[in-house]
């Protein structure tokens, strides 16, 4: 079993079975590209992996530990915890239009920090037990505030360094609508990275972009060395170049999986061959 292990994912929407038992393994720090025709279930798979969709069956293991089992019942809170282990970059960016770029990135970490602040406060209250009531409250309040400020500062610095990482340090105060599609998607990538997910998923990250903007986004993804990633993409040349593994999906099953050479140069399945041939002709 590798670092990220997915097995037996099934998903049915009323009459149609979209995923018919999907499984794969992905070592830490590696990149997997998922290719396949529209309607083959690629997006549904990603949505299931990020718990936006509830699969009927399936398990996810991270680092050998069971993270998710479709048969188990999880509370809203547990599911939220699990979602933090993976990130998702959407085809349509979905940036928050009412926040500036920096805030888009730092919002989620700031909300998470609140929990740490509460825990810290509790800890401080415990530690100072026995001291005079008002003095104790005052001291705890002061320390908690200082701690909150410190966390906020850390979050902001992290958001700024992420902005720099995607090459948009100068856009920190821009609203999403003031940015190009490519820039928006780069902010969205930084936003997903801010929570340091174990696995980062991309759902056709460049499909909504003009060709000239595609390159800058792919460039950013290419530079994310060491991050375990799953990329659903229509960009065959990109998949071939950056992916360590390629998974070809057809009709809700893994038709063929392997290294880029195996899939692109020596495909075994007829369906894979047909798909790649069709792609070549189109491009």
């Amino acid at each position, binding site marked *: 079993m590798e670092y990220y292990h997915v097995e037996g994912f099934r998903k049915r929407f009323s009459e149609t079975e979209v995923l018919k038992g999907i499984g794969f393994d992905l070592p830490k720090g590696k990149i997997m590209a998922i290719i396949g025709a529209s309607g083959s279930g690629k997006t549904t798979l990603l949505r299931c992996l*990020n*718990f*936006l969709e509830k699969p009927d069956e399936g398990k996810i293991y991270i680092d050998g530990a069971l993270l998710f089992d479709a048969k188990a019942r999880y509370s*809203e*809170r547990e599911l*939220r*915890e699990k*979602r*933090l282990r993976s*990130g*998702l970059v*959407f085809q*349509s960016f*979905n*940036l*928050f*239009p*009412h926040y500036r770029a920096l805030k888009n990135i730092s*919002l*989620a970490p700031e*909300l*998470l920090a609140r929990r740490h602040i509460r825990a810290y406060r509790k800890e401080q209250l415990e530690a100072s037990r026995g001291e005079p009531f008002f003095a104790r409250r005052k001291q705890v309040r002061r320390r908690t505030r200082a701690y909150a400020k410190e966390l906020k500062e850390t979050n902001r610095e992290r958001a700024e360094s992420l902005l720099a990482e995607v090459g948009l340090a100068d856009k920190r105060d821009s*609203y*999403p*609508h003031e940015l190009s599609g490519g820039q928006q998607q780069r902010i969205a990538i930084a*936003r*997903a990275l801010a*929570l340091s997910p174990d696995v980062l998923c991309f759902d056709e990250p460049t499909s909504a972009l003009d060709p000239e903007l595609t390159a800058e986004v792919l460039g950013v993804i290419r530079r994310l060395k060491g991050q375990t990633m799953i990329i659903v993409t229509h960009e065959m040349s990109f998949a071939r170049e950056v992916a360590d593994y390629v998974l070809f999906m057809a009709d809700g099953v893994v038709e063929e999986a392997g290294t880029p050479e195996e899939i692109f140069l020596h495909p075994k399945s007829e369906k894979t061959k047909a798909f790649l041939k069709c792609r070549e002709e189109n491009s």
Partner: protein
Amino acid sequence: MTTFLKITLELLEGFGKTCEIFFVTLALALPLGLVIAFGSMCRLRPVRAVVRAIVWVVRGTPLMLQIIVVFYGPSLIFGVYGFDRELAAIVAFVINYACYFSEIYRGGIQSVPVGQREAGQVLGMSKTQIFFRVTFMQMIKRIVAPMSNEIITLVKDTSLVRVISVVEIIMVAETSMRKGLIWPLFYTGVFYLLFVGLLTLLFRYAEKKLEYIKI
């Protein structure tokens, strides 16, 4: 001239009552409307059905009738008397306007793309956080125009409270009309116009302030 001044002061006093009903209704109906909006979008079917039925009844009957029902209802059914007139009027107004507001809220919430909520979910936010941090401002941006309509209507609807003899500006004017003076009734229009003009400016300001959100 002295009559004019006297009438102005009288009308101003009546208008004070009008404003009172307006602001209290607004302060209570705005939050209540949000609660009703959530009720009408609730995942539990019975809750949703009940809330939608209430909204249907409230929007489907005249406000004047509702004021009468709230004021006379308790005494007719339970034999309890001495219900405060103004309180009854405000209760009726709050329920009525909360229902109208709820539909505006619902429209605003549902017009925020589902991708926004999903982005919040993927980032590990709770439902409450998603509503207040992601959906809320986008909803506000979308509802300013329909809300301003409804709120301006509320200003003028306050004149309905005179059916249970709460003395507001129109009723004051009517009293003087019965004494033979008709012009104060027309004069009340000036008060309404000024007030609504002020509100219009306020809404324009709000719209300008929200211009930074492009959807």
